[in-house]
Protein backbone atom coordinates (compact mmCIF):
# COMPACT_ATOMS: atom_id res chain seq x y z
CA UNK A 1 0.00 0.00 0.00
CA UNK A 2 1.84 3.18 -1.10
CA UNK A 3 1.62 6.28 1.11
CA UNK A 4 -1.26 8.64 0.28
CA UNK A 5 0.46 11.75 1.60
CA UNK A 6 3.94 12.81 2.54
CA UNK A 7 3.87 12.77 6.36
CA UNK A 8 4.53 16.04 8.16
CA UNK A 9 6.22 16.21 11.55
CA UNK A 10 5.43 13.64 14.21
CA UNK A 11 3.91 15.46 17.18
CA UNK A 12 5.27 13.80 20.31
CA UNK A 13 3.63 14.69 23.61
CA UNK A 14 5.56 13.79 26.75
CA UNK A 15 2.68 14.09 29.17
CA UNK A 16 3.88 12.68 32.46
CA UNK A 17 1.22 10.99 34.54
CA UNK A 18 -2.34 11.56 33.37
CA UNK A 19 -5.75 10.26 34.33
CA UNK A 20 -6.90 7.33 32.22
CA UNK A 21 -10.32 8.79 31.38
CA UNK A 22 -8.76 12.14 30.48
CA UNK A 23 -6.33 10.38 28.18
CA UNK A 24 -9.17 8.44 26.53
CA UNK A 25 -11.12 11.65 25.86
CA UNK A 26 -8.01 13.37 24.52
CA UNK A 27 -7.22 10.35 22.34
CA UNK A 28 -10.72 10.45 20.80
CA UNK A 29 -10.22 14.10 19.93
CA UNK A 30 -6.80 13.44 18.42
CA UNK A 31 -8.17 10.57 16.30
CA UNK A 32 -10.79 12.96 14.98
CA UNK A 33 -8.14 15.58 14.21
CA UNK A 34 -5.84 13.15 12.43
CA UNK A 35 -8.83 11.85 10.44
CA UNK A 36 -9.22 15.39 9.15
CA UNK A 37 -5.55 15.98 8.40
CA UNK A 38 -3.90 12.74 7.40
CA UNK A 39 -0.41 14.21 7.12
CA UNK A 40 -0.33 14.36 10.91
CA UNK A 41 0.93 11.74 13.30
CA UNK A 42 0.59 12.01 17.06
CA UNK A 43 2.50 10.15 19.72
CA UNK A 44 1.68 10.49 23.41
CA UNK A 45 3.93 9.06 26.09
CA UNK A 46 2.49 8.97 29.59
CA UNK A 47 1.93 6.91 32.71
CA UNK A 48 -1.21 5.97 34.57
CA UNK A 49 -1.99 5.49 38.21
CA UNK A 50 -2.78 1.80 38.81
CA UNK A 51 -5.62 0.69 36.57
CA UNK A 52 -6.55 -2.55 34.84
CA UNK A 53 -7.75 -2.38 31.25
CA UNK A 54 -9.38 -5.30 29.51
CA UNK A 55 -9.15 -5.41 25.72
CA UNK A 56 -11.32 -7.41 23.34
CA UNK A 57 -9.53 -10.71 23.95
CA UNK A 58 -9.31 -10.24 27.72
CA UNK A 59 -11.45 -11.75 30.45
CA UNK A 60 -12.44 -10.85 34.00
CA UNK A 61 -10.79 -14.14 34.93
CA UNK A 62 -7.42 -12.55 34.19
CA UNK A 63 -7.91 -10.39 37.27
CA UNK A 64 -7.22 -12.65 40.22
CA UNK A 65 -8.03 -10.08 42.85
CA UNK A 66 -11.40 -10.04 44.65
CA UNK A 67 -13.56 -6.98 43.93
CA UNK A 68 -13.32 -5.83 47.53
CA UNK A 69 -9.52 -5.94 47.38
CA UNK A 70 -9.55 -4.02 44.09
CA UNK A 71 -11.67 -1.36 45.76
CA UNK A 72 -9.31 -1.22 48.73
CA UNK A 73 -6.34 -0.78 46.44
CA UNK A 74 -8.26 1.78 44.37
CA UNK A 75 -7.61 -0.10 41.14
CA UNK A 76 -10.42 0.45 38.63
CA UNK A 77 -11.10 -2.12 35.93
CA UNK A 78 -12.03 -0.68 32.52
CA UNK A 79 -13.18 -2.54 29.46
CA UNK A 80 -11.71 -0.85 26.39
CA UNK A 81 -12.16 -1.22 22.64
CA UNK A 82 -8.56 -2.02 21.77
CA UNK A 83 -7.25 -5.35 20.59
CA UNK A 84 -5.34 -7.54 22.98
CA UNK A 85 -6.19 -8.76 26.45
CA UNK A 86 -5.96 -7.64 30.04
CA UNK A 87 -3.19 -5.27 31.12
CA UNK A 88 -2.34 -3.86 34.53
CA UNK A 89 -0.98 -0.35 34.21
CA UNK A 90 1.11 1.08 37.02
CA UNK A 91 3.56 3.95 37.43
CA UNK A 92 6.88 3.02 35.85
CA UNK A 93 5.10 1.61 32.80
CA UNK A 94 5.33 3.87 29.75
CA UNK A 95 2.13 4.17 27.73
CA UNK A 96 2.95 4.52 24.05
CA UNK A 97 -0.15 5.99 22.43
CA UNK A 98 0.35 6.22 18.69
CA UNK A 99 -2.34 8.01 16.68
CA UNK A 100 -1.35 7.41 13.10
CA UNK A 101 -3.21 7.47 9.75
CA UNK A 102 -2.48 4.01 8.37
CA UNK A 103 -3.78 4.72 4.86
CA UNK A 104 -1.69 7.87 4.54
CA UNK A 105 1.36 5.99 5.79
CA UNK A 106 0.73 3.20 3.32
CA UNK A 107 0.51 0.37 5.85
CA UNK A 108 -2.17 -2.25 6.39
CA UNK A 109 -3.10 -3.56 9.81
CA UNK A 110 -0.57 -6.40 9.95
CA UNK A 111 2.24 -4.23 8.65
CA UNK A 112 1.39 -1.56 11.20
CA UNK A 113 1.42 -4.01 14.08
CA UNK A 114 4.67 -5.50 12.83
CA UNK A 115 6.32 -2.09 12.69
CA UNK A 116 4.94 -1.06 16.07
CA UNK A 117 6.28 -4.26 17.63
CA UNK A 118 9.58 -3.68 15.86
CA UNK A 119 9.81 -0.12 17.21
CA UNK A 120 9.26 -1.27 20.81
CA UNK A 121 11.65 -4.18 20.30
CA UNK A 122 14.36 -1.79 19.13
CA UNK A 123 13.84 0.36 22.23
CA UNK A 124 14.27 -2.69 24.45
CA UNK A 125 17.36 -3.79 22.58
CA UNK A 126 18.89 -0.31 22.69
CA UNK A 127 18.27 -0.42 26.43
CA UNK A 128 20.68 -3.35 26.34
CA UNK A 129 18.33 -6.17 27.15
CA UNK A 130 17.62 -9.34 25.23
CA UNK A 131 14.14 -8.95 23.84
CA UNK A 132 12.22 -10.62 21.06
CA UNK A 133 8.98 -10.69 19.15
CA UNK A 134 7.48 -14.18 19.04
CA UNK A 135 5.22 -15.07 16.09
CA UNK A 136 1.70 -15.79 17.28
CA UNK A 137 2.28 -14.19 20.68
CA UNK A 138 1.51 -10.46 20.56
CA UNK A 139 3.75 -8.07 22.44
CA UNK A 140 7.47 -7.82 23.07
CA UNK A 141 9.08 -10.48 25.24
CA UNK A 142 12.22 -10.84 27.32
CA UNK A 143 13.40 -14.20 28.62
CA UNK A 144 9.95 -15.73 28.34
CA UNK A 145 8.12 -12.87 30.03
CA UNK A 146 6.05 -10.15 28.45
CA UNK A 147 7.72 -6.75 28.75
CA UNK A 148 5.46 -4.72 26.47
CA UNK A 149 1.89 -5.72 25.63
CA UNK A 150 0.58 -4.28 22.37
CA UNK A 151 -3.05 -3.55 21.54
CA UNK A 152 -4.49 -1.05 19.09
CA UNK A 153 -7.78 0.12 17.65
CA UNK A 154 -8.45 1.61 14.23
CA UNK A 155 -11.18 4.08 13.32
CA UNK A 156 -11.43 5.58 9.85
CA UNK A 157 -8.01 4.03 9.17
CA UNK A 158 -6.51 6.02 12.05
CA UNK A 159 -4.79 3.78 14.59
CA UNK A 160 -4.84 4.60 18.30
CA UNK A 161 -3.89 3.04 21.64
CA UNK A 162 -0.53 1.30 21.14
CA UNK A 163 1.80 -0.37 23.62
CA UNK A 164 2.70 -0.35 27.31
CA UNK A 165 6.43 -0.68 27.98
CA UNK A 166 7.48 -1.68 31.48
CA UNK A 167 10.44 0.47 32.49
CA UNK A 168 10.81 0.30 36.26
CA UNK A 169 7.35 -0.57 37.59
CA UNK A 170 6.82 -2.58 40.77
CA UNK A 171 6.51 -6.07 39.33
CA UNK A 172 5.08 -7.54 42.53
CA UNK A 173 1.66 -6.20 41.47
CA UNK A 174 1.77 -8.24 38.28
CA UNK A 175 1.46 -11.55 40.09
CA UNK A 176 -2.24 -10.82 40.64
CA UNK A 177 -3.18 -9.93 37.07
CA UNK A 178 -2.63 -12.30 34.16
CA UNK A 179 -1.57 -9.72 31.61
CA UNK A 180 -2.60 -10.81 28.12
CA UNK A 181 -3.75 -14.04 29.79
CA UNK A 182 -0.24 -15.20 30.67
CA UNK A 183 0.35 -16.77 34.08
CA UNK A 184 4.01 -15.70 34.28
CA UNK A 185 4.20 -12.12 35.57
CA UNK A 186 5.51 -9.44 33.25
CA UNK A 187 9.06 -8.20 33.45
CA UNK A 188 10.61 -4.75 33.01
CA UNK A 189 13.64 -3.09 31.48
CA UNK A 190 15.01 -2.53 34.99
CA UNK A 191 14.63 -6.19 35.94
CA UNK A 192 16.22 -7.43 32.74
CA UNK A 193 19.14 -5.00 32.99
CA UNK A 194 19.70 -5.79 36.67
CA UNK A 195 20.07 -2.09 37.19
CA UNK A 196 18.47 1.31 36.85
CA UNK A 197 17.04 2.61 33.60
CA UNK A 198 16.65 6.28 32.76
CA UNK A 199 12.99 6.76 31.77
CA UNK A 200 13.86 9.97 29.90
CA UNK A 201 16.28 8.05 27.73
CA UNK A 202 13.68 5.37 27.04
CA UNK A 203 11.13 7.98 26.03
CA UNK A 204 13.64 9.50 23.65
CA UNK A 205 14.27 6.08 22.10
CA UNK A 206 10.54 5.49 21.66
CA UNK A 207 10.01 8.83 19.92
CA UNK A 208 12.94 8.19 17.58
CA UNK A 209 11.84 4.63 16.83
CA UNK A 210 8.24 5.60 15.98
CA UNK A 211 9.35 8.54 13.82
CA UNK A 212 11.83 6.35 11.97
CA UNK A 213 9.54 3.34 11.44
CA UNK A 214 6.70 5.42 10.05
CA UNK A 215 8.76 7.80 7.95
CA UNK A 216 8.28 11.10 9.72
CA UNK A 217 11.05 13.41 8.53
CA UNK A 218 11.07 15.42 11.74
CA UNK A 219 9.59 15.42 15.23
CA UNK A 220 8.08 18.19 17.33
CA UNK A 221 8.24 17.57 21.08
CA UNK A 222 5.67 19.00 23.48
CA UNK A 223 5.29 18.61 27.22
CA UNK A 224 1.60 19.35 27.38
CA UNK A 225 -1.45 19.71 25.18
CA UNK A 226 -4.03 22.43 25.74
CA UNK A 227 -6.87 19.91 25.53
CA UNK A 228 -5.37 17.66 28.18
CA UNK A 229 -4.87 18.75 31.74
CA UNK A 230 -2.76 16.27 33.65
CA UNK A 231 -4.97 15.09 36.49
CA UNK A 232 -2.11 14.17 38.72
CA UNK A 233 1.44 14.90 37.69
CA UNK A 234 3.56 13.45 40.42
CA UNK A 235 5.91 16.00 41.91
CA UNK A 236 8.93 13.79 41.44
CA UNK A 237 7.98 12.62 37.95
CA UNK A 238 10.36 14.81 36.02
CA UNK A 239 13.14 14.64 38.60
CA UNK A 240 13.20 10.83 38.43
CA UNK A 241 12.96 10.96 34.64
CA UNK A 242 16.28 12.66 34.08
Amino acid at each position, binding site marked *: *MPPDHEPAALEAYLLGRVGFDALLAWQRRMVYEVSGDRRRGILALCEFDPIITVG*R*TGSHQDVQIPSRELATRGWPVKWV*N*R*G*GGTVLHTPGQLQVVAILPLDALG*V*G*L*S*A*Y*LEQLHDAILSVAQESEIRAEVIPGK*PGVWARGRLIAP*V*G*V*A*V*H*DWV*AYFGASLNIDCDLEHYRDVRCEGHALPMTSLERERHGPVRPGFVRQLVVEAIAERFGFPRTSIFHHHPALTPSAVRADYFSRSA
Partner: protein
Amino acid sequence: MADDATEVDIILPDLGADAARVTVWFANPGDRVFAGERVVEVATESATFDVAAPAGGVLQTRLVKPRDPIAPGQTLGRILADRDD
Protein backbone atom coordinates in the same frame (compact mmCIF):
# COMPACT_ATOMS: atom_id res chain seq x y z
CA MET B 1 -39.62 4.28 2.53
CA ALA B 2 -38.89 1.31 0.27
CA ASP B 3 -39.80 3.32 -2.84
CA ASP B 4 -37.10 5.92 -2.33
CA ALA B 5 -34.45 3.67 -0.77
CA THR B 6 -31.83 1.33 -2.12
CA GLU B 7 -29.91 -1.55 -0.51
CA VAL B 8 -26.21 -0.98 0.16
CA ASP B 9 -23.92 -3.74 1.41
CA ILE B 10 -21.58 -3.22 4.36
CA ILE B 11 -18.42 -4.84 3.11
CA LEU B 12 -15.30 -5.69 5.10
CA PRO B 13 -12.39 -3.85 3.50
CA ASP B 14 -8.98 -5.45 3.03
CA LEU B 15 -7.42 -4.82 6.43
CA GLY B 16 -4.03 -6.12 5.44
CA ALA B 17 -4.41 -8.73 8.16
CA ASP B 18 -4.56 -12.50 8.03
CA ALA B 19 -7.59 -13.32 10.12
CA ALA B 20 -10.40 -11.30 11.63
CA ARG B 21 -13.62 -11.93 13.47
CA VAL B 22 -16.66 -9.90 14.39
CA THR B 23 -16.64 -8.47 17.91
CA VAL B 24 -19.50 -5.99 18.31
CA TRP B 25 -22.40 -4.59 16.33
CA PHE B 26 -23.15 -1.00 17.27
CA ALA B 27 -26.53 -0.92 15.55
CA ASN B 28 -29.56 -3.17 15.54
CA PRO B 29 -31.72 -3.93 12.52
CA GLY B 30 -34.14 -1.04 12.15
CA ASP B 31 -31.73 1.51 13.60
CA ARG B 32 -30.97 4.63 11.59
CA VAL B 33 -27.28 4.94 10.74
CA PHE B 34 -25.33 7.76 9.15
CA ALA B 35 -22.74 7.49 6.39
CA GLY B 36 -19.30 7.08 7.96
CA GLU B 37 -20.66 6.07 11.36
CA ARG B 38 -19.17 2.90 12.80
CA VAL B 39 -21.69 0.11 12.66
CA VAL B 40 -19.65 -2.98 13.40
CA GLU B 41 -16.30 -3.69 14.99
CA VAL B 42 -14.02 -6.49 13.85
CA ALA B 43 -10.82 -7.66 15.49
CA THR B 44 -7.59 -9.43 14.84
CA GLU B 45 -5.51 -10.71 17.76
CA SER B 46 -4.00 -7.32 18.65
CA ALA B 47 -6.26 -4.83 16.92
CA THR B 48 -9.83 -3.77 16.52
CA PHE B 49 -11.16 -2.06 13.41
CA ASP B 50 -14.34 -0.02 13.05
CA VAL B 51 -16.28 -0.73 9.87
CA ALA B 52 -18.26 2.33 8.85
CA ALA B 53 -21.68 2.58 7.28
CA PRO B 54 -21.18 3.09 3.52
CA ALA B 55 -24.38 5.12 3.34
CA GLY B 56 -26.97 6.71 5.56
CA GLY B 57 -30.24 4.91 6.06
CA VAL B 58 -31.65 2.11 8.13
CA LEU B 59 -29.71 -1.01 9.05
CA GLN B 60 -31.70 -3.75 7.40
CA THR B 61 -29.79 -6.97 8.06
CA ARG B 62 -26.82 -8.24 10.03
CA LEU B 63 -25.31 -11.16 8.14
CA VAL B 64 -22.60 -12.04 10.65
CA LYS B 65 -22.60 -12.28 14.42
CA PRO B 66 -19.99 -11.78 17.13
CA ARG B 67 -17.10 -14.29 17.01
CA ASP B 68 -17.80 -15.21 13.38
CA PRO B 69 -14.60 -15.42 11.32
CA ILE B 70 -14.72 -13.05 8.36
CA ALA B 71 -12.68 -12.34 5.23
CA PRO B 72 -11.95 -9.21 3.18
CA GLY B 73 -14.74 -8.46 0.73
CA GLN B 74 -17.32 -10.29 2.79
CA THR B 75 -20.70 -8.65 3.20
CA LEU B 76 -21.30 -8.05 6.90
CA GLY B 77 -24.71 -6.47 6.68
CA ARG B 78 -27.03 -4.42 4.56
CA ILE B 79 -28.37 -0.88 4.80
CA LEU B 80 -31.58 0.37 3.28
CA ALA B 81 -30.05 3.63 2.16
CA ASP B 82 -31.81 6.92 1.66
CA ARG B 83 -31.73 7.76 -2.01
CA ASP B 84 -30.23 11.19 -1.20
CA ASP B 85 -27.12 9.45 0.18
